């Protein structure tokens, strides 16, 4: 369950860090790409685990 919810929660967190913060605190540049990759891989890993059990 945790794993299935991760994409939603991490997705919103990432979007907020891009949208809701003024400079210089807003996510930008290389770091934004790195954080995006971490969010994608982490959520993807969780969903993979669930599918692995269900299928």
């Amino acid at each position: 369950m945790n794993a299935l919810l991760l994409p939603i929660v991490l997705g919103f967190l990432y979007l907020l860090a891009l949208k809701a913060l003024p400079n210089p605190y807003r996510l930008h540049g290389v770091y934004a790409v790195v954080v995006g990759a971490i969010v994608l891989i982490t959520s993807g890993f969780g969903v993979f685990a669930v599918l692995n059990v269900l299928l």
Partner: protein
Amino acid sequence: MRQSLLQRRGLVYFLGVIGPGLVVMLADTDAGSVITAAQSGAIWGYKLLLLQIILIPILYVIQELTVRLGLVTGKGHGELIREHFGRGWAWLSVTTLVVASMGALITEFAGIGGVGLLFGVPLWLSVGMAVIFLSIVAWTGSYRSVERVAILVGGFELAFVVVAIWARPQPSEILAGLVQIPWKNPDYLYLAAANVGAVIMPWMIFYQQSAIVDKRLTIHNLHAARWDTAWGALITQVIMGAVLIATAATLGQTHPGLPLDTVQQITHALTPFLGKTVGAVFFGLGMVGAGMVAAIVVSLATAWGLGEVSGYRHSLEHHPLEAPWFYAIYTIGIVLGGLLVISGVNLVALSIAVQL
């Protein structure tokens, strides 16, 4: 002299800011995570230890975003989603929080109750006492007092480090296991994914951001709040690693296939190697600490999150009569979770469903 005074002032300031990161990270290694780490060590030896280390910077990077958002906007995660994406998305997000929290609370109480059973304490008594204690902590305290209690009970998790040292792990075997990654094995990948799920959790994001807001930290505290998060990430993964090492150095060597789905199974398996004091008492202390701090964090995250989206008053600084919904949601979650565990539903199946 002047320098030491400045240093002391710096330390006092830092101690005043730390808390949201440390507490959320102590709660991160909750009862369910302890079971996942124990299974990892028993089945795969030290081969999942490297993952625990890799997860330290990942945890930091993710939770640091909540630090920025909380400090700069002064608003919680639910409130920000409502403002930027609308009510519908905010409700969706907070619903995921409620579902995850309810599941987590059940695993925490199952862990606490399991330790009680080891020492002959019936479920209703151990879980009932935990429910009462957790309610009193929130109802009678301010944000800072609740935070202090959370750090104190979460600190019991350090007992796992004693258990790991007592298990006499061989450094050469640890080093060998660190670099063996059987990534083509689907069972290994599955347990690796379960570890990621046990370390990165939805309610942590809600909690840390709301805690920063309730503690009234501001952007001037950014530096110290980042250190709070970094130290927390390190400590929680040391605890995960300690549990993994404890089972890898003992069960991993001789009985890698033992079922380890409950506290009782783990302690029964560890006791022949470590003796009753370390295998059961210390492991039990760590487990109770993990379950209690996580129960506080999960319930607060839910009560804050629902308040941020629906608009009811939500702060530990309010008296229960001033913020009745906030205290009611906090208490209802704890009581429901406790009752479900006492009722004797199939906790193993439920815990696995939650962790996934």
